[in-house]
């Protein structure tokens, strides 16, 4: 009786519990937005611009109105008459809902048709005649700032050119001084190409406005339902308590489902006008060409070095292409997101970063595709720069990193850009990785192979990512501070329901939140149901992205469980007829310190909360907790890849990949490994094939899955995962740091560094991603760098 319950048996912390959500997903019983059918529901389709930049001379929708089954045709003009042609963005710019004056990117929303079924709606879209006058097109930052460049945002009186911001952070003078005293300066310039998060489920919504109750219910694909509710209240000027946002099962998000898209707004307006439910489901091309993209940043920088290998300073400049509207979905006050988290794992005394953002005739809405905003670019530049610096010094790649890491005993560590990192064992992670890949042996093999004309390479990448998008001092969305929440209701029989302000999209929240409660209360995880995504029932929270769920909402789950435990302790004292001070806790059970045999289980306390509470105690056993994290969390990882490059074709194959992730305490090791494998797959994709580009006319190359390449199981290499290094987060209630994004953030540089290492004999410094065979072949054949977004090039 004095025994605590076995934590692993009840599915607590550290249990590789099977994902409870999978039983419905793998049976095809998920409930996605497109699965929902409401009585009297109509269907909406969007007419998109075929041109990247053009003045709209006229729109004639009369033929569309004539088609039987068409209920409404929305154009920019109609939106403007309701003050809805433009909407505010999450980055304090404006974005067209439906174009009025000009179209500014290919795929921009021009009109909407609402009809009895999607076939009719599509037919009617084709019947709308739009007269466009083409304008010169801008597809990159260099063109955006060139003399005489057309001004894309001529709708804004205060916008004389295409520059969105010039921003800086760090110590300019100190950095200059450090460079002046350097023995060696190493330089690097590269482009992180535009990509798209591309969840398999595209975006969509069903707006259902009920005139009788004045209530608007919107089912939609959103990672952040409460933020959407606030935004709808602002944009549509509806009272917030009359808006209910329901985010049902989501088929992947990866950041793509954070922003507010014109389709959502139009479906809501259409439902209000027609007083019928209106469903909008985006098709794949619509998703790829118009919704939140990622990256598209030109980075250049230099590193000041002492002869012995010590890093003295770093200087960086970034040119970010934001597309037609500055609608980055990011919660920081920093214009270029968390780009300045670069070099946080290295002991860099001083640094300075300048950043410029420009408009272009490309889709808007930069999102943090599987990362904290811009951290992927930051880590990629960091690890490519580190490799270049080590090579310039003639130093071993591993040794250069080892000597410059922030040492284990130097935490908390203030980075040169002002972040505070709290814990880590960087050198140890590197040692585990090097041993796993058999570093010394591989170097010998590589030298031997090279003498026979075979090109082997090894690439190392490390990453530390600031996770959580929280602490209310520095992070907000539309002024709302970045905390999160959890509500826990323990029923009379000891079963429970947890709700949080996060919204999982495949991360496994339904499994892991229950495990945290099991860890805190000893209630078996199977007795706990998890619910998220309905603003009428979930506590207010900021949603799921930036790996923030475990660091913030997960912390709230632990905190709310502790509140419950505190009340249960009072109940236990009452039941055991001793004072609270005499009570001890063993997982799942309170007992009398002096008589451990006398105890009550948490379930018995639950009954008492409803059936036998002490006089004066409020009945029931539920609580809500809001958690404002004291700091970001900083997981760390080392990724090492070996490759062989075919010099005749430029094709490269991965030989081995090793991943060492220190994400603090692992709630569910199996889910953590799944997240790492998924992230490494995306990292491989970035380095090898996955990018969206544009031709000189602004036509999107990558508007479907024949051109936007997601790797399949066939080409994705195998990964060897290591979990032996665990540094708990000192300020998180259960010591977790977040893991959803690390591998996607840190992985790409490992692949690129490996290919660069393989072809190092050519003297080539950089080939920009993706490392398509033709680019690698060109580098080897002509011994030159291959740069820029492929392909704004063509024969004509």
């Amino acid at each position, binding site marked *: 009786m004095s025994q605590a319950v076995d934590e692993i048996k009840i599915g607590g912390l550290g249990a590789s519990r099977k994902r409870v959500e999978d039983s419905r997903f793998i049976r095809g019983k998920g409930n996605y937005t497109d699965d929902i059918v409401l009585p009297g529901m109509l269907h909406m389709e969007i007419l998109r611009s075929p041109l990247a930049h053009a003045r709209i001379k006229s729109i004639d929708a009369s033929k569309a109105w004539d088609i039987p089954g068409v209920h409404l045709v929305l154009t920019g003009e109609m939106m403007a008459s309701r003050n809805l042609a433009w909407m505010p963005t999450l980055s304090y710019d404006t974005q067209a809902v439906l174009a009025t004056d000009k179209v500014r990117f290919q795929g921009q929303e021009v009109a909407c048709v609402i009809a009895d079924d999607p076939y009719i709606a599509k037919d009617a879209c*084709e019947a709308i005649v739009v007269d466009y006058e083409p304008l010169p097109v801008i597809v990159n930052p260099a063109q955006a700032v060139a003399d005489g460049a057309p001004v894309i945002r001529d709708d804004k009186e205060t916008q004389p050119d295409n520059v969105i911001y010039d921003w800086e952070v760090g110590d300019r003078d100190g950095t200059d001084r450090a460079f002046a005293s350097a023995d060696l300066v190493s330089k690097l310039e590269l482009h992180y190409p535009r990509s798209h998060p591309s969840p398999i489920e595209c975006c969509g919504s069903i707006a259902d406005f009920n005139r009788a109750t004045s209530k608007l219910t919107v089912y939609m694909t959103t990672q952040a339902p409460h933020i959407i509710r606030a935004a709808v209240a602002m944009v549509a000027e509806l009272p917030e308590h009359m808006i209910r946002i329901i985010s049902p099962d989501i088929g992947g998000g990866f950041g793509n489902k954070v922003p507010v898209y014109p389709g959502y707004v139009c479906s809501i307006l259409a439902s209000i006008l027609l007083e019928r439910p209106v469903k909008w489901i985006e098709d794949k091309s619509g998703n790829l060409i118009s919704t939140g993209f990622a990256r598209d940043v030109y980075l250049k920088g230099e590193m000041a070095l002492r002869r012995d290998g010590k890093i003295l300073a770093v200087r960086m400049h970034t040119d970010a292409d934001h597309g037609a509207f500055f609608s980055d979905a990011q919660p920081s006050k920093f214009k270029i997101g968390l780009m300045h988290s670069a070099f946080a794992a290295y002991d860099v005394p001083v640094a300075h970063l300048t950043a410029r953002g420009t408009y272009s005739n490309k889709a808007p809405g930069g999102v943090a595709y599987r990362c904290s905003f811009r951290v992927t670019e930051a880590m990629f530049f960091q690890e490519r720069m580190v490799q270049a610096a080590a090579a310039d010094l003639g130093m071993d790649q591993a040794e250069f990193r080892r000597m410059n890491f922030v040492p284990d005993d130097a935490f908390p560590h203030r980075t040169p850009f002002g972040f505070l990192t709290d814990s880590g064992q960087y050198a140890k992670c590197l040692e585990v990785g090097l041993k796993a890949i058999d570093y010394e042996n591989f170097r010998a093999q590589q030298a031997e192979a090279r003498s026979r004309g075979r090109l082997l390479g090894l690439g190392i990448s490390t990453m530390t990512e600031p996770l959580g998008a929280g602490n209310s001092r520095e992070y907000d969305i539309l002024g709302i501070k970045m905390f999160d929440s959890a509500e826990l209701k323990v029923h009379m029989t000891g079963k429970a329901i947890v709700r949080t302000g996060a919204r999982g999209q495949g991360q496994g929240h339904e499994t892991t939140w229950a495990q945290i409660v099991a860890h805190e209360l000893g209630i078996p995880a199977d007795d706990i149901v998890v619910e998220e995504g309905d603003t009428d029932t979930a506590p207010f929270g900021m949603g799921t992205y930036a790996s923030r769920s475990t660091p913030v909402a997960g912390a709230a789950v632990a905190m709310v469980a502790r509140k419950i435990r505190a009340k249960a302790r009072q109940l236990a004292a009452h039941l055991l007829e001793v004072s609270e001070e005499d009570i001890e806790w063993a997982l799942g059970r309170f007992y009398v310190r002096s008589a451990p045999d006398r105890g009550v289980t948490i379930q018995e306390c639950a009954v008492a909360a409803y059936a036998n509470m002490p006089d004066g105690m409020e009945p029931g056993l539920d609580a809500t907790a809001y958690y404002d994290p004291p700091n970001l969390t900083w997981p760390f990882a080392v990724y090492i890849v070996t490759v062989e490059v075919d010099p005749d074709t430029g094709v490269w194959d991965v030989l081995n990949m090793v991943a060492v992730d220190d994400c603090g305490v692992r709630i569910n090791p199996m889910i953590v490994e799944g997240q790492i494998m998924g992230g490494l797959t995306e990292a491989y994709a970035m380095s090898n094939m996955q990018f969206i580009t544009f031709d000189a006319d602004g036509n999107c190359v990558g508007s479907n899955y024949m051109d936007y390449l997601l790797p399949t199981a066939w080409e994705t290499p195998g990964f060897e995962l290591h979990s032996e290094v665990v540094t708990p987060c000192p300020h998180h209630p259960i010591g977790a740091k977040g893991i959803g994004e690390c591998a996607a953030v840190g992985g790409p540089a490992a692949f690129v560094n490996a290919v660069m290492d393989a072809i190092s004999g050519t003297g080539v410094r950089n080939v920009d991603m993706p490392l398509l065979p033709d680019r690698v072949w060109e580098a080897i054949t002509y011994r030159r760098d291959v740069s820029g977004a492929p392909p704004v090039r063509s024969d004509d």
Partner: protein
Amino acid sequence: MYPSRFRYEAPHSAAEAIRLLAAGGDNAKVLAGGQSLVPLMKLRFAAPELVVDINNLPGLSYHRADPDGTLRIGALCRHADLERSELLARTQPTMAAAAPLIADPIVRNRGTLVGSLCHADPQGDWASVVLSLGGSVVAQGPAGRRSIPMTDFVTGPFQNLLAPDEIAVEAVIPAAQGERRGGYLKLERRVGDFATVGVAVSLETSGEVVRRAGIALTGVGGSTIAATEAAAALTGHSLTTESISAAAEAAAEAARPRTDHRGSAEYKRHMVATFVERILTRCTAEPAERAA
């Protein structure tokens, strides 16, 4: 998928299908595996008024060799049938090499070789393979059957010589003069991708002498390209380092690639030469090694 409105017929005989096609004229389309037509209809790049599904026509799923070695592939023979075919593995090295490189397993389960030839996509793999083997297509219309050599069948990108009321009922590969050697190499960015560059090489040899050679190129021109000079460089000789590089060079010369997001024209040309060389070098190996 929301295509334009169309009428759908699934007749049970070739005669009925031909009658429907004749009535439908230019606005009718045959549906075989649907792996090219359906995606085009989904994107509304194709909007036929009538779709004539030939999947109910009896007796077209075969691929078989006549006693003299002539290979016949019926209009409903799927890529997957060819991929798993023992007959091809034994007798048709170029086809056996190409089959598993087409699309992905799901597409291969439905798509047909004959449909691929009809579709005449410059990036389609089978057209090069059949061209390199000197094959032909048998068309059936109101007036009966006719045979069209592959060299004439494709008239341009996505265009073929069939009349609107004709169905392609089979593809024919003539019997070899001697032993078949050859292969197909394809550069793709990912499984399921169309070829950035594809090269089909088909040889018929007696002893070490090449009796007949066919080389055809995928993805490096407005249509599939027959590299006839490259083939001529091999015919009547045995394979030597010199003849191999002469053929590789001539094939690269015959390519008409364009620079695009898949690579530069120069790179694609280089890959044509590299692939021709690799396949031919492999052809010089002993049969057991070649099979490996």
